[in-house]
């Protein structure tokens, strides 16, 4: 573990990512200190470009974009991490069990996965939000529901391949328990794939949220980056900064998450560096 930590901190891009991510977390934490009150409040003239009266300018109703971005960091991080966490736990459990045990369990679990996966995911998320309503908890739920199947399939594929490896076969013939084989021998070997996919999944969750917001399906009482982009979209060509500011925020966050993911990947799988 210590080695892994050292490998991680030696990985420069990963450190950069971590620093960025920490900055986003801090932004989320200090939002209400820096900008007390409602981020939806109208504070100035609309359509002011950045670096005028307001550091990041104002949007079409004259709301301070800097305040919106700070508050948005909260919502966006919450949605990204919460949805991914739920989806990963569900996906790894279902995919792992299916891939490891195969046979009837596999058929059943994969049927379940297929069920959720054949439904066009974005459309299904829209359907869920349309039916359940667009409060933030329901949006997280909807994103998690549509996000886990790819993880399950990926983990299943890895487990299936792993199940037939010599060392697993050896463990089985030695009479080792299934739980132990899965947790100690197979899971660590699939971790890199899970981490890589998981890191992209956070990003995907953030992007799904922005897609839903773009279609007007966000929580109207909560400020999020997706919401700012969605509302600024129609003025993309006349007031570029309204989309660009939260867009860059999403970009940096997604990039940071990915770099950290890569760093973890390399750190947890030292053999990968030998190519």
């Amino acid at each position: 573990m210590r080695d892994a930590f050292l490998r991680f901190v030696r990985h420069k891009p990963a450190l950069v990512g971590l620093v960025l991510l920490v900055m986003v977390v801090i932004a989320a934490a200090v939002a209400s200190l820096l900008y007390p009150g409602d981020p939806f409040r109208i504070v100035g003239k609309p359509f002011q470009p950045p670096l005028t009266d307001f550091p990041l300018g104002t949007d079409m109703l004259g709301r301070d974009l800097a305040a919106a971005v700070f508050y948005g960091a909260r919502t966006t991080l919450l949605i990204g991490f919460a949805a991914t966490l739920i989806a990963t736990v569900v996906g790894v459990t279902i995919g792992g069990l299916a891939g490891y045990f195969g046979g009837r369990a596999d058929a059943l679990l994969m049927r379940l996965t297929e069920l959720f996966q054949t439904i066009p995911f974005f459309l299904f998320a829209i359907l869920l939000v349309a039916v359940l309503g667009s409060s933030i908890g329901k949006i997280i739920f909807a994103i998690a529901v549509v996000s886990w199947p790819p993880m399950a399939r990926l983990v299943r594929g890895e487990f299936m391949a792993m199940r037939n490896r010599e060392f697993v076969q050896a463990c089985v013939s030695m009479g080792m328990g299934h739980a132990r084989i899965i947790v100690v021998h197979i899971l660590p070997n699939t971790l890199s794939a899970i981490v890589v996919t998981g890191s992209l999944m956070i990003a995907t969750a953030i992007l799904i949220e922005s897609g839903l917001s773009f279609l007007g399906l966000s929580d109207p009482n909560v400020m999020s980056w997706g919401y700012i982009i969605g509302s600024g979209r129609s003025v993309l060509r006349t007031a570029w900064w309204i989309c660009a500011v939260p867009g860059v925020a999403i970009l940096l966050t997604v990039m940071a998450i990915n770099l950290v993911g890569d760093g973890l990947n390399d750190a947890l799988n030292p053999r990968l560096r030998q190519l």
Partner: protein
Amino acid sequence: MPSLAYVLRRLAQAVPTVLAIVVLNFLLLQLAPGDAADVLAGEAGSATPEYMAQLRKSFGLDQPMWLQLLLYLKQVVTFDLGFSFRHGMPVSELILSRLGPTLLLMGTVLTLAVFVGVLLGSLAARHLNRWQDNLISTLTVLAYATPVFWAGLMLIVLFSVKLGWFPTSGMQKVAAFHEGFAKVKDIAHHLVLPAVTLTLFYLALYARLMRASVLEQASMDYVVTARAKGLTERQVIRRHVLRNAMLPVVTMAGVQVGAIFGGAVVVETVFAWPGLGLLAYESLFARDLNLLLGIFFVSTCLVVMVNLAVDLCYSMLDPRIELR
């Protein structure tokens, strides 16, 4: 080699999945407030309560829910997708007219994304932690994190408005109504921008997956063995590493089919591409149940078949995987 019996068994297994999806979506849609008659009245401008009642009756909405479901299932089993009252057309006709454009866009995007993604991914892995790797990683993440509608609109601004190379939207030039080969060329011309926009988004996934996968495979014992046997690096990579590294990529491609099939709503919106995603999206908000369920049904069948194909590919890429 998988047997025909295996394929048939898989298809038979799929039947309950398909039906379960239809039932799940049917029930979910029952939870949504408002119905097709509300929407039609809203669009028409007004309607008397008597007219609304008559509408609901002719749509079958006055029946109890379980009866509606039973009737629908009975239809679906005979591959009759019913009638879209909103469009005044059979659902199958509506879906068929959108299936071609959808498959065209989906096929192009998937092929491009997998091909370019595998190429970039292996390239990045070959040049691990060097500038090529960093450049590829940065660019693909950039492409991935850019909101699709923003990328689409920017491509339109650059390539249609400023440069005039491609049309902004649609699938064919409506002022011309080309026939024959000119029509094919015209459609291909219209396909470029939406396909590129969507590919940019999916590319990152394949490139990253391929990179990670190549690295993982390269560290495997069998590769070390192959090297020890005296195979050249090129042979090792091509014969062993790439082949095995393709596994997760193929898995993901299979998964993505379902996603792209209906998930291209945004691109279809931006480029006015007449795909199924947009049709499904519109039918949801119009509470056009038959149409929406029909689209779910067709996409389900499609994904079932693609998943089967993916599993067949598996066994070819890695003979150790048993198909049971």
